[in-house]
């Protein structure tokens, strides 16, 4: 499934990032960082009706030879990025959407926690659990 999952705050710094092959994380971090440009581009593209009409699911941001990057942005400008291995038989778009949905739900739960300050790194075990569930099981 997912090779790397990242949550980026509104100010474009990561709140949470985790990748399965713990080695080579730097590559994924870099990929996620570059994908933010594409996300910004997509966000600014739909400038007319801000918010409501804008689709949360951004879809495939850009594919590389090794993997594909999918993006999702919430109404509060928190971005979720999922990196999927290309060799993995293509996950259907619906599956990606469901993954994002789960992520969003977990993130909401985290946000609901009064002890969590927005902008702090996410240290919720529940959230971790969700993410782990979505990560490639091989890891």
């Amino acid at each position: 499934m997912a090779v790397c999952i990242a949550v980026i705050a509104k100010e474009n710094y990561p709140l949470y990032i985790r990748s399965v092959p713990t080695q080579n994380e730097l590559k994924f971090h870099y990929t996620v960082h570059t994908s933010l440009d594409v996300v910004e581009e997509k966000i600014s593209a739909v400038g007319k009706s801000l918010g409501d009409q804008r689709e949360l699911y951004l879809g495939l941001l850009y594919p590389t030879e090794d993997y594909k990057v999918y993006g999702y942005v919430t109404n509060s400008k928190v971005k979720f990025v999922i990196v999927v291995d290309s060799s993995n038989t293509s996950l259907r778009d619906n599956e990606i959407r469901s993954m994002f949905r789960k992520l969003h739900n977990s993130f909401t739960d985290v946000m609901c926690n009064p002890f969590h300050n927005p902008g702090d790194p996410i240290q919720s075990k529940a959230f971790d659990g969700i993410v782990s569930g979505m990560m490639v099981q091989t890891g």
Partner: protein
Amino acid sequence: MECLKICFLVILVPGPVTGDGMWSHSPPPPGQESWVSFTADTPPSSTLPAMHPSSVQESTTIRTVASAATTNEIQRQSSTYDDPWKITDEQRQYYINQFKTIQPDLTGFIPGSAAKEFFTKSKLPILELSHIWELSDFDKDGALTLDEFCAAFHLVVARKNGYDLPEKLPESLMPKLIDLDDSAEVPESTADVGYSASPVEVTPNKSPSMPSLNQAWPEMNQSNEQWETFSERSSSSQTLTQFDSNIAPADPDTAIVHPVPIRMTPSKIHMQEMELKRTGSDHNHPTSPLLAKPPELSEEAKLPASMKFVAANAVGDGYSSSDSFTSDQEPITRQRSQSGTSPEALKVVAPPPPPPRPHPSHSRSSSLDMNRTFAATSATGQPQSSTIAYPPAVPPRPLPTQTSAPLTGHRVEAEGVSGGGAVLTTTSPQQIPQQPNFADFSQFQAFAASEQPSSLPEVDKHSEAGQADKAPEGAGPLRTVKSDGQADERASATVNSTKGSSGPLAPPPKPVRRRLKSEDELRPEDEQHGPQKSNVIAAVLATQPSIPRSVGKDKKAIQASIRRNKETNTVLARLNSELQQQLKDLLEERISLEVQLEQLRPFSHL
């Protein structure tokens, strides 16, 4: 008092890793004091220690001591396998009191911020508090109900005592506790042993945790529905990931939790939605059997953590039970509604096609058009018929002839053409001009005689022609109604003509005389003509009023009269022209005669 509180803590730790011995009625660890201070009330009974983890600990003595309160509790304790996490009644009461300090209404919520402040006093690290919150806020609404608060408090206390926080909320801490806690339980002798490791084992023991649900199985009968609801509710939360795939669409589940408006009016879109919902509900249902499975499993794995599920089922409390019922009912009702609407929708299939539009054509407009056309046709027909009626068959033109003899025939013919009867014929010989010179006159006379609306006198060729022309003209427009009048006119004319003709009957010996006579004749003829004309006109006029004044015939009558007038006008005009010609001729003759006279006179002058 403090000791009692300590006892609280003691209870929590059945076989804790740290300080087993400490807990039993031992002075509170230093860290507790602060915590203790923050608690207001103190449970009175010293039974506390005995209450709780008796199952874990085999201290019957403690039990007996502690469980003075209720035999039920003792039973619970003896039976409870789970529980380091179980909340005793005293504890619960304590928590409730604490809850009241924040929220007087026991059925109300404690907002997250207040809870945060409250629990921050326990001096636990934020991270742990956050985790505790995650565990305790079962419905993830950012607020704590009484049960949630109790659970959170309980976890705080446990943590305070060095107890590691579980990964999953212990079933006993699940909202709706205690009452259903009794359960069944399979006593866990190994609970103790395993307990210290329980927090650690919790996560790995997901599968055994499920089986442990059976413990509460007997109790769960009551809360079966609650299970299902819980599964739905907790789907998005710390539910076992194993179910995630099944419950997978946490969103759809949660989304479905709220009542979904269902259109009663079928529509394609609606039907699609309904189908989707049905499938979603189907998805939901499999969870229930899954949930049912765990209780069936008769293992008892101690681990309370796993019980989250079980607890959900096991515990049925007022608040959450109500929720579960409502939420449970919702899907059921929803399904019912869906099922109800689905067949309806199927029956209806599609909105009945609108009644076929009336033909744009051939409706009123068309009919009107047709009517109009018909009316037009009829109208045209009528006028046509009327018009057709107008021009009656044109009588054949009389052959114009100038001979006197044939004149009579002419006249006869003319008369005949005009429709004159034998009367005219009889009179015609009388009218025969005895002099060829007066043929004109005779013709004129005949013309005058025939100068009736119906009959036209024949004077000359043109007069005859005119007569001929006029005859049909006169005959054409005239109607049978007027034919009588014509007959009368003719009769009068003929009478006049006869009278007039009597004068010229005596041929003048001399042309002068003839001329004079002719003149005289002319005069009387004129007079005759005049009277004839006048008679004619009078006759015409007379005939006009005779026309019956019928609504339908007014137009025709007027038209007929108009035509007659026109005819008379034309006739009179011709008469005038002819008379003038005759006048010219006469003048010429006079001149010639005077010349002759002058030629003769010179001889007389000799």
